[in-house]
């Protein structure tokens, strides 16, 4: 059983996130960290590997060279190997370009299962798995809160807007897990010490046979045209309850013609 976990380095949670007005891309110059939602996918991969007692967990990512630091967290948790597509030509890739390049890296790995976390915390993206599944021509199940493997197929129970779905798919398959699926383990000291010596491979676009016109900005089909501040919310009013708060709320709602 070979499991690939697609992960991403995002700006550290404590960093103030901003879009660079010049490049119109997210400013990634500050401290980076493993996208917290991806830790759930890594944990699930390790849990599945432990349950079957054999197999390999490889984390796959796209990003600048220094993103290896963030990938090491996944290695410290217990993943066996890391693959990073680090190429200046891939910077600024949108969904189409990212899914193409990531798809090529996954085709090279030939995993039985590809896992994603439920969203990226930087771009609020929650779509990449479906595009990657389409590139690989594999079934996809998203938002999975319970995952079981049996024989050559997997069953995912997931939350939707309307309740629960239980979906079954044959392997190889692509699954995005919800963050409620598990509690990611903390890396042990031994894990942290051992992470550096685990195999870490850096790939270029050329290594994957992706031409420059299909990656980065040239390969992207969307563009950022302008940035602006959000419209102000208008005045806010704050009152202390002196026993008449309910009446004051009713007066406010009535003034706004809401009741």
């Amino acid at each position, binding site marked *: 059983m070979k499991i690939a976990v697609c992960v991403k380095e995002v700006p550290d949670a404590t960093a103030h996130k901003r879009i660079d007005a010049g490049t119109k891309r997210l400013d990634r110059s500050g401290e980076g960290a493993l996208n917290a939602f991806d830790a759930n996918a890594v944990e699930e991969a390790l849990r599945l590997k432990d349950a079957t007692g054999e197999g390999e967990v490889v984390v796959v990512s796209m990003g600048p060279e220094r993103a290896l630091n963030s990938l090491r967290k996944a290695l410290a948790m217990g993943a066996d190997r890391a693959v990073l597509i680090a190429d200046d030509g891939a910077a600024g890739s949108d969904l189409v370009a990212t899914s193409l390049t990531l798809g090529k890296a996954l085709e090279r790995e030939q995993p039985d299962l590809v896992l994603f976390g439920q969203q990226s915390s930087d771009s609020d993206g929650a779509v990449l798995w479906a595009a990657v599944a389409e590139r690989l021509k594999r079934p996809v199940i998203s938002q999975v809160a319970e995952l079981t493997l049996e024989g050559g197929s997997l069953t995912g129970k997931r939350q939707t807007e309307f309740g629960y779905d239980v979906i079954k798919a044959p392997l190889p398959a692509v699954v995005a897990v919800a963050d409620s699926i598990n509690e990611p383990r903390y890396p042990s000291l031994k894990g942290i010490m051992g992470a550096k010596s685990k195999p870490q491979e850096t790939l270029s676009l050329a290594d994957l046979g992706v031409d420059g016109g299909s990656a980065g900005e040239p390969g992207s089909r969307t563009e950022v045209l302008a940035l602006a501040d959000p419209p102000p919310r208008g005045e806010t009013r704050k009152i202390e*309850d002196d026993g008449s708060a309910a009446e004051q709320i009713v007066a406010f709602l009535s003034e706004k013609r809401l009741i």
Partner: protein
Amino acid sequence: MSVLVFLEHHGGELQKGSLAVLSKAASLGGDDVAGVIVGSGLDGLAEQAARHGAATVYVADDPRLEAPLPQPRVDAIAELVADKGVETVLFAQSILAADIAAGLAARLEAGLNWQLTDITEDGGSLIGKQSALGDSVVVDVGWKTTPRIGLFRAGSLDPVEQAAAGTIEAFSPELQEHSLAAEMVEQAHAEESGPSIEDANVIVAGGRGLGEPEKFALVEELAKALGGAVAATRAVVDAGWYPYSAQVGQTGKSVSPTLYIACGISGAIQHKVGMQSSKTIVAINKDPNAPIFEFADLGVVGDLHAIVPKLTELVQARRG
């Protein structure tokens, strides 16, 4: 300008969000606005779509399309885009719609912009308004090629009913092998009482400040008095106080009702991103430093256990 809108349905009804996107597409002024409905046993849905601005409603009614799974829908829409020369495909955000939109983007090598709150036409090209980075910045986004794909944030638009009736055209898409690999084994729907939070004009939401799960009754009674729906924060959903279908925020739903009353909610950024586009926000919280007071139109520092029941009574009295 040829626009196709994916019309999601559930329980024999088209989703309000999808109809709102259809109305938006119709308002762009093109005469070639179509909707597509995919599923099984779809009687009556196409007529509803025709009343919301679709000049043509394409219907793929097939037992193999019954389960709301994304990949067969990618096949259906990709086929329409190719056959009808569709330039733009628009979706209202949902778990299903996001998976279809992204699969379609890869299939058609098409640009996908998400978290859209509006779209405008400018000399033949389209510009989307995207709310980004926790709503701290508004981004104008474009598409460099056609087809274009757009995913609208839930609750950002309203459906508009129109007199014009469109034509209905059935089609039978060819489905790919990998698209039929996943299979719905079971669909268990949560019991719903009252309007769903996506469709509600008024939402009353409860958080940790309620103290215990039984206190959600206070929130439910106020919602009932106002004819609204009940929402919850992630913290209380995780704690098992309320079902996930009611969760508002980064990992739940985004809503923008006319009135949002937050009871015992601190207003952490993860919750804020799901509700800050509500037209009017009222917050009741005992902590005067709660972040929600920075963006609530009316903030009340006080004990919700005393204020909310009284408020419910006053609202009931006014409504007779």
